[in-house]
């Protein structure tokens, strides 16, 4: 993945990201870590094109991200809470997207939905609505939905934030199974073992800035006091 961030600023009521400049090349799975409120979720939303920054530019793999509707169609996003449409079954959550926004026929959509749900070990849950499955199953269905549009990049924003340790493991195992899928990943998480296993590059954010970044080995050798403190808290 070739990522270039230039003069990126974003504010809601307060400044969340302040003049971010960053670039990297060749890595396929990038983890963004940091304490709550450090700007990780904002950054991942901006990188996915879901939100527009106050100012600045983002380019991923040579494509302008901001305001680019075509780019949005090439990404998948997994939210903190599964964010499936609650009135639709797991299967319909996928087929609706494929039929209405990707021009697939009903049969094609069904076939893709089934194969993605099977990939996430949910073949026996396809006709249930989200509230009738476990949090882990719903989150895996959300990953299946993100995969169903055949994205080039998959964004995961703390996909296990609302899950207990067993369900967290269930979801992260499902994500790890995608390692050889040919997709690229940018994800936010607090599960450091997953970062070590799955990421090939790590970005540590602190107070709206990229404070440290490097290979996953950096987790064992934090340079700054802030990162040391963070690592001591998440271990």
């Amino acid at each position: 993945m070739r990522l270039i961030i230039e003069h990126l600023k974003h504010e809601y009521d307060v400044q969340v990201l302040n003049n971010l400049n960053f670039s990297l090349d060749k890595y396929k799975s990038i983890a963004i870590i940091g304490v709550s409120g450090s700007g990780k979720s904002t950054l991942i939303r901006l990188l996915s094109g879901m939100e527009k920054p106050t100012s600045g530019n983002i380019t991923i793999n040579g494509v302008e991200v901001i305001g680019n509707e075509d780019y949005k169609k090439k990404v998948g996003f997994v939210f903190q809470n599964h964010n499936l449409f609650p009135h639709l079954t797991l299967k319909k959550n996928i087929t609706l997207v494929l039929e209405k926004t990707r021009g697939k026929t009903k049969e094609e959509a069904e076939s893709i939905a089934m194969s993605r749900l099977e990939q996430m070990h949910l073949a026996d849950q396809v006709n249930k609505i989200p509230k009738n499955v476990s949090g882990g199953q719903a989150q895996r269905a959300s990953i299946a939905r993100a995969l169903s549009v055949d994205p080039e990049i998959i964004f995961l924003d703390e996909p296990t934030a609302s899950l207990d340790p067993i369900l967290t493991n269930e979801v992260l195992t499902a994500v790890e199974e995608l390692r050889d899928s040919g997709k690229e990943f940018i994800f936010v998480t607090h599960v450091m073992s997953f970062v070590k296993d799955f990421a090939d590059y790590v970005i540590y954010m602190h107070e709206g800035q990229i404070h440290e970044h490097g290979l996953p080995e950096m987790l064992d050798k934090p340079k700054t006091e802030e990162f040391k403190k963070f690592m001591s808290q998440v271990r």
Partner: protein
Amino acid sequence: MNKQEKVINYSLALLTFFALILFVVLRQTQNFTLEPFENILPKILPSLGRTLFVSILSLFGSMIIGFIFYLMSKSKVKYFRALVDVFTEIIYGTPLLVMIIVMAFVIGPAFMSGSNSQAGLHRLGIIGIIIYMSPYMHNVFKAAFSSISEEQYMAMDLFGFTSYQKYRYIIVPQVIRILMPPLMNNFSLIIKGSALLHVLSYPEIYQLIYSETLRNFFFIEGFILLWAMYLIITIPLSALAKFAGMMLEI
């Protein structure tokens, strides 16, 4: 509460009320008769029909205006939002009876000349109910639409749903489930509120029975009859609201 428990508890509650009614009836010292109202029997159904007609009209009218208020309250134009807030405060502090009278005799004539005919007054009275209920409907819409999380809108945008598709397949099917029960409750309020149209001599059920009591002086019987008439309409509606809520529950 499982189904059997529910049946038992509701049966007990009904029995309690029947016992209370029986107690009250047995304690009465004067005779109770509906005979003086026999002469208006043929008019009861048409009057009930008119009550329902104005209520349905007011329901849809206030839904439309309430939805417009909802859109205004979500507008980027702060003036629209302020306008809705101020209007809501005014209505919340206004009794429905005052609204009907003021609409029929003050506000309405200012906008429509020749509105002082009987039919014109009735129309303005109904408009009064519509205007009065609109902020309440606005609240119903606000609550229903707020049930769709910001992240769902983000997901819809990211997948590339068009506005029509968002509303048709995702927003409306969810909102309607939440909308139904409070909408039915507001409908019940409108039905009861429509009784106030009698001040404009609109021939709905309250006006029919109340005018008869003025002739026969059987006030208590008249009001009990009225009570029964409104319960005949509102209890099935309330049951329908509960049923709709249950069927549409996510």
